[in-house]
């Protein structure tokens, strides 16, 4: 049985939150350090790392790896600063008892921001250890060198002390300074200055992931595999019409299933059972009478009209340069277009799961949420417990790409556990994974360009209008942002946010703006919107980079040349050139002149900035004219995210972005009727099939050691859809302005 135990969890080095105790045996004759660990706090060096008696190092990381090797990169960074071999670094993450809240997995900042305190702490620890060694060896610190965790006198290597000997098993008890910001922006530092990148030996290598072998041998326990003594299996029941609440629940309808109990509180309806299969059957059999709620959604076909007509809740104009109105007034020609992007689902590989053991005065949460500290906070609030009485433990879950359904499962499990006074494991069914997860927002995007008589762009306006990217906040620390909380009547406190294209086109006058509209239902909506990988990036850049091609086409200019004419930022120019060069870009206007035959081929380029990273992609497509089906045959990606920590890990991360981006561009669209989401499985919400996988994703990495590392978890998904749409236009002469670029749409447009 996979009964939960500390032993079992320590089997795999560094795999998730597996190492919970650093073990302090053999504190032999240490003269420095304290035997007792100071309380967890960002301003304590011991909150960030520990040296074990044998000299192994534990790094405490308050962000998460979601399967892209961020923990490996953190181990590289810590090993680098400490001069300890990579193999000797263990990374503990996602356990609220052992790590400070660095924001969890968020905005691809795991390395970019999450690595900063770890780098500083490791540098500080090295400084202190060298100082201590210098005292004990009786030589000045500048005559000391560190190799593989051993401090030795230069030129006299026999005089040495290992880190293990110096402090192993004890605590530094050393204060650092910190900026007081819990979450992504937390910075802590000591007196030491980190190494210059020119001295890096471990950073820049590609050690493999910690968790891959355990996964491949079927030996890694996921959150779905957590079993605690006395645990019951829970399932939730969601309303058939969004907004309906239960009027009557007939417990008798599940009486013949052994040990089934129904928990109902306002709109929250769940079931627990001793056996999981009984819980699953009970969900189907339980008879609930629901209130007559007016179906809250527009017809799906009217979605974009709804967005166009909806009143604006918030408008922002982050970019406004030059004189727009005179430019348009004097334009020799105006190009304009409007683009549309649907709701999309996280559709994680497994529906969300969480286990909560809620007692009267404390609770434990096992969660796959990418923000376990915030998940802990939400469970504490839902249970009415102080935060420090709830222990949140992250265990790997099915892949997570933002605020997915994992953020809801913890609170579901907490409320069920409290109601039945037993630990409860909740897992969703597939229709919940697709049908009830928070969605990526649907939107429309209007673009206009004013051209002078020579075809130069003198005015450019880009405006997005859509559902907020944060109807549901980016984390689940407040139950009002959880499905359970909303079904129990907590009103949605919709936050307002969208975004603008991330590019450096230097048009003479330019305005980029966004507008958000109200959610379709004020609480408990299966179309509530939240962060989905690269929140609003793919949709905005789909529109903005398609439109750049439309201006280029309108002026019969090669799309690459057009971009290079207007791009301003040197790194942007460099990636665009690098992608084009590697792809052997053929300079000519789109569409291609010869568009005969049943198989059409074309190429398109698009690029995007993202939080310090910049990516350009050339897509090459093949299209079956008879079916309208697009095959993304080849991608060439040029990627610059500053300093590269782990090149192989980065390549796979980019591949995953490109494949998921292709899926979202070509096939993904949440379907709904007036009452509910109707795309509730893999048939109604298809993703890119392996048979449709590109033949090649050719990647050019541009390393910039002079720059800090930026995030790579989301940057390269951003320009994929536009590169594909531009390639489709090149191949066919047809401009698809509504995503996804389905065979039906293309076939209709080609007819």
């Amino acid at each position: 049985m996979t009964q939960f135990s500390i032993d079992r969890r320590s089997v795999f080095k560094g795999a998730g939150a597996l190492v919970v105790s650093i073990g302090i045996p053999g504190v032999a004759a240490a003269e420095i350090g304290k035997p007792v660990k100071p309380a967890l706090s960002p301003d304590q060096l011991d909150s960030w790392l520990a040296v074990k008696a044998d000299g192994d190092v534990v790094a405490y990381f308050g962000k998460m790896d979601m399967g892209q090797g961020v923990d490996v990169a953190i181990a590289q960074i810590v090993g680098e600063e400490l001069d300890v071999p990579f193999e000797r670094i263990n990374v503990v993450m996602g356990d609220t008892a052992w790590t400070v809240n660095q924001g969890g997995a968020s905005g691809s900042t795991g390395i970019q921001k999450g690595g900063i305190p770890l780098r500083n702490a490791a540098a500080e620890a090295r400084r202190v250890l060298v100082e201590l060694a210098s005292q004990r060896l009786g030589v000045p610190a500048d005559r000391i060198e560190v190799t593989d965790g051993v401090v030795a006198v230069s030129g006299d290597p026999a005089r040495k002390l290992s880190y293990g000997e110096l402090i192993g098993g004890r605590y530094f008890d050393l204060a650092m300074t910190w900026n007081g910001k819990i979450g992504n922006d937390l910075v802590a530092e000591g007196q030491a200055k980190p190494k210059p990148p020119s001295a890096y030996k471990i950073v820049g290598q590609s050690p493999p992931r910690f968790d891959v072998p355990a996964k491949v041998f079927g030996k890694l326990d996921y959150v779905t595999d957590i079993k605690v003594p006395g645990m019951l299996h829970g399932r939730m029941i969601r309303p058939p019409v969004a907004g309906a609440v239960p009027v009557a629940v007939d417990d008798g309808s599940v009486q013949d299933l052994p040990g089934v109990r129904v928990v109902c509180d306002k709109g929250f309806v769940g079931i627990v059972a001793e056996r999981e299969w009984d819980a699953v059957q009970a969900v189907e059999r339980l008879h609930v009478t629901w209130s007559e709620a007016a179906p809250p959604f527009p017809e799906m076909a009217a979605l974009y009209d709804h967005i166009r007509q909806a009143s604006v809740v918030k408008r922002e104009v982050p970019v406004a340069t030059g004189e727009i109105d005179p430019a348009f007034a004097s334009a020799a020609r105006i190009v304009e277009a409007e683009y549309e992007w649907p709701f999309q689902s996280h559709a994680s590989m497994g529906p969300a799961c969480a286990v909560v053991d809620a007692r009267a005065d404390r609770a434990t949460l096992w969660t796959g949420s990418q923000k376990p500290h915030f998940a802990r906070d939400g469970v504490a609030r839902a249970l009415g417990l102080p935060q420090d009485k709830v222990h949140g433990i992250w265990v790997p879950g099915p892949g997570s790409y933002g605020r997915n359904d994992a953020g809801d499962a913890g609170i579901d499990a907490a409320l069920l556990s409290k109601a039945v006074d037993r630990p409860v494991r909740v897992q969703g069914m597939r229709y919940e994974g697709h049908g009830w997860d928070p969605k990526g927002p649907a939107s429309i995007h209007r673009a206009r360009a004013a051209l002078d008589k020579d075809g130069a762009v003198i005015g450019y306006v880009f405006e997005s209008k859509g559902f907020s990217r944060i109807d549901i906040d980016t984390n689940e620390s407040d139950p009002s942002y959880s499905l359970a909380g909303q079904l129990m009547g907590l009103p949605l406190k919709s936050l307002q946010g969208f975004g603008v294209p991330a590019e450096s086109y230097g048009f003479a006058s330019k305005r980029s703006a966004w507008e958000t509209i109200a959610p379709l239902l004020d609480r408990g909506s299966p179309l509530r919107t939240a962060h989905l990988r690269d929140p609003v990036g793919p949709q905005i850049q789909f529109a903005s980079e398609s439109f750049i091609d439309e201006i280029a086409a309108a002026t019969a200019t090669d799309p690459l040349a057009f971009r290079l004419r207007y791009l301003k930022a040197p790194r942007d120019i460099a990636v665009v050139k690098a992608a084009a060069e590697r792809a052997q870009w053929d300079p000519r206007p789109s569409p291609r002149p010869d568009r005969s035959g049943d198989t059409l081929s074309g190429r398109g380029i698009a690029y995007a900035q993202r939080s310090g990273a910049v990516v350009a992609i050339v897509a090459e497509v093949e299209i079956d004219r008879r079916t309208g089906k697009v095959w993304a045959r080849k991608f060439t990606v040029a990627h610059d995210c500053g300093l590269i920590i782990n090149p192989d890990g980065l390549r796979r991360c980019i591949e995953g972005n490109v494949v998921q981006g292709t899926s979202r561009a070509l096939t993904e669209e949440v379907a709904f009727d007036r009452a509910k989401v109707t795309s509730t499985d893999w048939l109604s919400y298809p993703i890119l099939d392996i048979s449709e996988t590109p033949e090649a994703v050719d990647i050019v990495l541009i390393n910039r050691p002079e720059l800090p590392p930026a995030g790579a978890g989301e940057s390269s998904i951003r320009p994929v859809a536009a590169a594909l749409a531009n390639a489709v236009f090149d191949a066919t002469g047809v401009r698809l302005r509504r995503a996804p670029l389905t065979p039906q749409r293309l076939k209709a447009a080609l007819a």
Partner: protein
Amino acid sequence: MAERIAFELNGETRTVEVAPDTPLLYVLRNELGLSNPHFGCGLAQCGACTVHVDGAPTRSCSLPVSQAAGTKVMTLAGLGTPEHPHRLQAAFIAEQVPQCGYCLNGWIMTAAALLRDTPHPSEQQIRDGLSGLKCRCGTHMAILRAVRRAAQAA
């Protein structure tokens, strides 16, 4: 009503007493304590629950356990071990395939049967043979590389 059902699981005979319509997946995970395979959809659409039943890749979420009676069931953990990895497991590690890895049962167990029956598959045979399985993290490129690598190791 519960029934006694016996089958061979990764080489050992196991007997359970469960309702015969319980899907094999639930029996493996809950009665027999396996952590793997996984529940992904329960609809035979994704492959996260794939095991071999008498050598055939089978979606255990949709197979009533009564139909597994008397068969040989093998899971990913039974396919190979760190000491004696199946060549696909070695290839999936060499290519560092998984992100979350929740999908791996489907890919590896299906590919294992494919390579057993077609030791030197063409690219098209690999793609067709794995079609329908899901990987939401989008590790498709690495999966294909790993299967090609394993085929070459045959």
